[in-house]
């Protein structure tokens, strides 16, 4: 089974944690495992884990970042989301 691969992460679109991904909390953040690609990805902070878990509640990824992340950190978190979208941990919703 292949999912649509997304090279271009558009923060003005709606995103969510892929239903094909399991997240396991760890002290440093979380481990994410994609059951189709069999790839393991590390989420390296607790706030990033919360953002990823709640992403699907918002109309766009930008809205989620604005609501959940201090403004000085916005770019860093958008970059983190882009990277997670590239590894298919996130998918469009």
């Amino acid at each position, binding site marked *: 089974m292949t999912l649509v691969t997304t090279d271009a992460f558009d923060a003005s679109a709606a995103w969510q944690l892929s239903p094909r991904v399991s997240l396991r909390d*760890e*002290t*440093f953040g979380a*481990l994410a*495992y994609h*059951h189709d690609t069999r790839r*393991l990805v590390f989420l390296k902070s607790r706030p990033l884990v919360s953002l990823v878990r709640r992403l699907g509640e918002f109309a766009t990824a930008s809205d989620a970042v604005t609501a959940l992340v201090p403004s000085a950190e916005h770019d860093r978190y958008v970059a983190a989301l882009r990277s997670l979208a590239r590894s298919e941990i996130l998918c469009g919703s």
Partner: protein
Amino acid sequence: MGVDSSLRSRFEQGLAAPICLTWELTYACNLACTHCLSSSGRRDPKELTTDEAKKLIDEIAAMQIFYINIGGGEPMMRKDFFELVEYATSQNIGVKFSTNGTRLDAAAAKRLTSIDYLDIQISIDGVDALTSDRIRGEGSYDQARRAMDNLRDAGFGPFKISVVMTRESVEQLDQFEQLADSYGAQLRLTRLRPSGRGVDEWANLHPSREQNRELYYWLKDRPQVLTGDSFFHLSALGEPLDGLNLCGAGRVVCLIDPIGDVYACPFVIHDEFLAGNVRADGFEAVWQTSELFTSLREPGNPGACASCGSFDACRGGCMAAKFFTGLEITDPDPECVFGHGETALASQRVTLRRASTQDHSRRTRIAVSS
């Protein structure tokens, strides 16, 4: 799956649950490979029952362990093999299982193809019968190839061909790659450890320092070749290989053996690395609170490697390889790329090779009929 050094140090302190859990389902095996790291052959009468195995799978699911590596022995020799695999995958636990292929006939291939979340590794130890059978027994290579044919014909998709790197097989890297390509399979290479019956064979079979160097560059050119983080001791040669590049024993890795004993990693089936038993304690308690695993998660002493500029790259290498060649944990890896391990081995006043404390080898070697 590259990780930075801050994350690596977090891993060295241990995780809530293993990333890589190996579960040897049975000590029974119809082959008698000379380098078998679990000294398998005969079934142990104390092996987990079907109900106990399912209870363990429930616990694995509750701990959110994403996938398990099933081995043996030959796991397909358990009568409840399919029942257990299907029980695990139905709970969304991915299963990767290693097999010698002898039981993987057309019907089994068809059934395996119907299971989601399943990866199969078929082991060979040479690219031809001559090389492989010397280690795995007469007829074993042809049987493994038949299993590969069966998986291909059943439309399983990209299975894995798993090869332990020996002095001979490491000379056949390009041919292994061609073989894997011919099946649309993935190649998986792992390190020969001096564990189990391998303790007797390691000195004769392990690749030379020059061969290890060539292997490192070959792997650097082929990130698609899987290694299970097996060759991190070679990362001292330059850029790290793909993977966590650390000794995961008791930190991100562990082994559950067929009787439920939990060891720090698949390569140290020895009382010194026995953390507990799933029957007696439950797996989660062993993983999270056993004395052994707690001590393995404490900051390590770099020992003899402290003054080496490459310690951060190789972390002193593989604990099991040191232990079974009689080196101290603070010694360099016996296959240290700079030769420090060879020096340490040569300076041993007496050879302190240890033997595994579980031995299920058959008493006589049997030929495999083809």
